[in-house]
Structures are given as C-alpha cells and as structure tokens.
C-alpha cells in the first residue's frame, strides 16, 4: 500500500481537480493514521480474500424496457440554464486544441 505523506495526498487531491491548504493536508494526514488502523481491521479478517466483492445489496432483475415513444429532447436553453458562460448556445471554455 502507498505510504501516506503530504505529497501523496496533494497528488490525490490535484488529480481530483481541487487543492487544500497546508493546514488541511496536515489534518488529513493525521486523520489517515486512525483510518488506516480502522481499515487494517478489515485486513485482519480471516478468509476475506476468498469472498466475491459485493457491489450492490442484491441483484435487481430489470426485465422491462421503456416504451419506444418519441419525445422532445431537453430544449437547449433549459440544458444551458445553469452554465454561467454561454456564447451562441454553447458553453464557453478555454481552448483545448492548439
């Protein structure tokens, strides 16, 4: 497992596209000392690696499909109503390609 230090935590938060202050990283590093002890309890469970991972409480059989009824899509002005920077019906962003 990766060792916890400020650089690992900063790399994780930056890859999630946010940053924190030095004080906040220090709090998080301290929090991890307890969290890793708690998480270690799971690792001590006998036979844990023989089990199948559980992703949902139980299987829900989806045996129906939506009716194939034509409908109006979301109007452009409604789709864009929450964006703060809209030009000519499109969300404006900094240039991505050259």
């Amino acid at each position, binding site marked *: 497992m990766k060792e916890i230090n400020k650089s690992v935590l900063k790399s994780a938060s930056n890859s999630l596209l946010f940053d924190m202050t030095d004080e*906040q990283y220090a709090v998080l590093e301290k929090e991890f000392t307890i969290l890793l002890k708690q998480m270690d309890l799971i690792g001590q469970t006998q036979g844990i690696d023989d089990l199948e991972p559980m992703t949902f409480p139980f299987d829900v059989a989806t045996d*129906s499909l939506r009716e194939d009824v034509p409908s109006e899509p979301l109007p452009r002005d409604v789709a864009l109503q929450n964006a703060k920077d809209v030009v000519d019906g499109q969300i404006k962003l900094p240039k991505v390609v050259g």
Partner: protein
Amino acid sequence: MSYLDLTLADLHQALVAKKVTPLQLAAEALKRAKANGDNAFERFMENEAFAIASALKEPEANNPFWGIPFVIKDNFSTKGIETTASSNILNGYIPSFDATVVARLLAAHAVPIAKSTLDELAMGGSGTTGHKGPTFNPYDPKHERMIGGSSCGSAVSVCANIVPFALGSDTGDSVRKPASFAGLVGFKPTWGRISRFGLFPFAPSLDHVGYFTRSVEDAALALAVIAGSDIEDATTSHKQIEDYTRLLKKDIKGVKIAVISEVVETIRNKAVIAAFDETLTALKKQGAIVSYVSLDKQMLETIFPTYLTLCCAEATSNNANLDGIKFGPRFEGKTYQEVMLKARTAGFSELIKRRFVIGSFALMRENQDVLFLRAQKNRRKIVNAVNAILKDHDVIYLPAAPGIAPKFLESGDRLSDTYLIADNHLVLGNFSGLPSITIPIGFEDKMPFGGNVMGRAFEEALVLQVAEKIENATGYRNLSVKAVNL
C-alpha cells in the same frame, strides 16, 4: 392546538372534515418554518406552496396526502427550484425536472413548503457541514446538541411540528440516526423499493430514499404513496406494494425477533439499555419470541471502515461532474482543468475534500486490492451474516444509537467498540439494502433516543407491524418538542 400538531393521518381527517384548508396549513407551516431558529432550511417555497394549496378545493377522502404540507431535503431535484445539497459548488443550480418521489407527492396533491438543510452533499452524520453552518436539535434550547445528519433539516421540520412528513436520504444512517436524536419515526425501506431518480447520488450501492414522520401509521401511509417501480430508475423493484396500513394492526404473535448481543454490549448508556429492555418485555407480552444472537465482534468492528472506504470511493466518482462549468460558480482559467480546479477548490468544504481524497486513495492502483476490493468483500461477509440471522428470525431489533444526541464539541475515541459498533451498526441496513425503521423508545436529560427494527428485503409490512407494537408500548406516538414540553 394547531392542526400542524397532529399526525399526518389525523390531519388528513381534519382536512376531509373541512375543519382546515390546505392553504391555511401551508401558511401556518411556512410561518413556523420562518420562525424556527435551528438552521433547518435552504429556502422556502412560498410561491409554489400557495399556488398548489390554493388550487385544492375538494378534499379526497382516500388520498392521505391531499393538502398535507411537507419538506424536501435539498438533495432531491425540484423543477425550477434551486437545489444545492447544502454545497457551495451547487449554488444557483436549478434542476429542470422533479425527482420521482417529489413528483409522486405532488401528484398526490401534497404541498411542498421548503427545501431543508443537510450535511454537504449528504456526506456526514452530524448536521454540521452544510454551507449554511450547523443545524441544531430543537430539543436543546441551548443549541449545544446536534440533531445528527445528514438529513438534519428534515428531522427538525418534523420534530418541531412544522410539517408531519419530510423527505430524507440514507446512505449510512442519515435518516435513522437523526430520527433517534429527534424522537421521530425514520424509515428507510428496502433498496429498490423507492425510486432514486432525481436524488443526487452519493454512493449508489448504499443510497436509499427515506423519510421522517411522527407515527408508524404515517410511515405506512407514506410508503404506499412513494414506493414502486420507476422506468427512470433501473434499480427499482417491480415487487408489489402491499397495503401497509391495513397490515399494520396485525398482531405479532410468534414473530421471531433477534437481538445482536455484541451490539447491545457496546452500549454503556444505562437509560438506553433500560428503555430497550422495557420494549423487549412489551414485545414478549404481545407474543413475539425474542432471542439474543451472536455475531463476530471483530467483524462488527469492521462495519465503519468498510462503509467509509466504499462510500468515499463511490462518492469520488459520482461527484466528478461538479465542475463549475455546466453548473455552479464559474472561475477564470487558462485551461479547463484550471477552471475546474478553482471551482472545486472554492466549492467544496474541507470535509468533503478529505472524503474524496480517502476515496481516491482507496482506489489507487497500489491500494485497490487491499482497501477497496477488500471492503467490497467484507461487505459480502457482513451481509451474509445478517441474512443468516434473518433466515431463522423475522426481524432484528436494536437500540438505534449508543445514547442521546451528542454535543457539537464532543469527540469520542474513533477506535473504541462503542464508536465502531454501537454508533455505526445502522449501516448494516445499507450494506444489505434491508428495510430499517427507527422509533423513539426513551428519554435522558429531556433528550430522546430510539430503537431500530430491520427486516428481510421487501418485508416492510412486518417491520412496520413490529415498530407499531413498540410505539404502542412506549406511548411515543406523535412525539414532538412541543408535545414533550406541554
């Protein structure tokens, strides 16, 4: 006496008898909401409430929600109404549709009066992390005690008699724990029983719609209105909805109730144990068969770390769309990554960022096998153990929390068995997706606390029956701050 002090069922009778009108109720509910000082509301829906209530003229005797004012937790989408999930990253966000549960309540002619506060993005259990600050427990006039979270504002709305019903969501215990701290009925039906379309996802493998009422009968009435399959949510079940209200009165002779010894043993609060034992005696008197069963204590101590690992990992991914571009506050930057980084740095609180980093850490390639996958495997082990109990028993009954609502500055030992087990065992209901209801069972220092009944998947009727027998035994029906202080 105000009509808002009645349960939903009794208020319905008053509406049908035309003793009060929906408009009068909406006006009174809004007045109470605005006068409330517990920081329970994101925004009031005065225009919408008055428009809906004014149009309701002829009462519908067979529709218990006709004209009933209600409150919506602010992580349910409401068409045309700002919905922030108490996070700055969503300030100004206006959904273009209603969540299915909201739509069903509106179709039943219920009257929404406000959106309520929550822990930011529903990720918390204290009711302190929303962007408007902490929400207070109305039972404590000194404002020293929390009401719990994340559905804090909805819990206040019901225990302060502002409305008889409020929507919440429950990923760990976010309805059932605040219900315990607020002397309320808090119900989280089976995963798939109620549509989650339009509920902001936190951890979809654990997220449930839940709600607060002041009686078990009201909880049964509400389920009949909002339950059922939804073409917009592929995880909803097609299982038939039962007549929960009629089944409520069935006796519980021969019903097998399991009590998990290792959970009870981690609760050191004598008042909680005494009240819990009294309810067990009452259940036995009514013919239920109560047995103590055992679960591996070491396994129970892994409930919290398993939950934290799974919910943070799921949340990290689910909230990646909160970018400050499609919605939320917009910042300038030379690249879109810079735009997002500035928006997310300013938009999320410290706690949310910490949770995202925990989730990201658990998902890192070097850690995934030993953290995330192991947590998923351990979830299966825990769920298998719970389901094994329910093969031989009809329900599991336990104290909902180790004590009354904690003070804001109280901080217990996070490695103690009381914290790891007694404070977090309600998560069993989220791991397993089983129906789980909290009901009030006692008081200490004028603060309420609850018990919790959990049953097999889609057996809500039986869970409600047992809960109603506990309610009958304690007499804590229609409990509220006002009723207690009379």
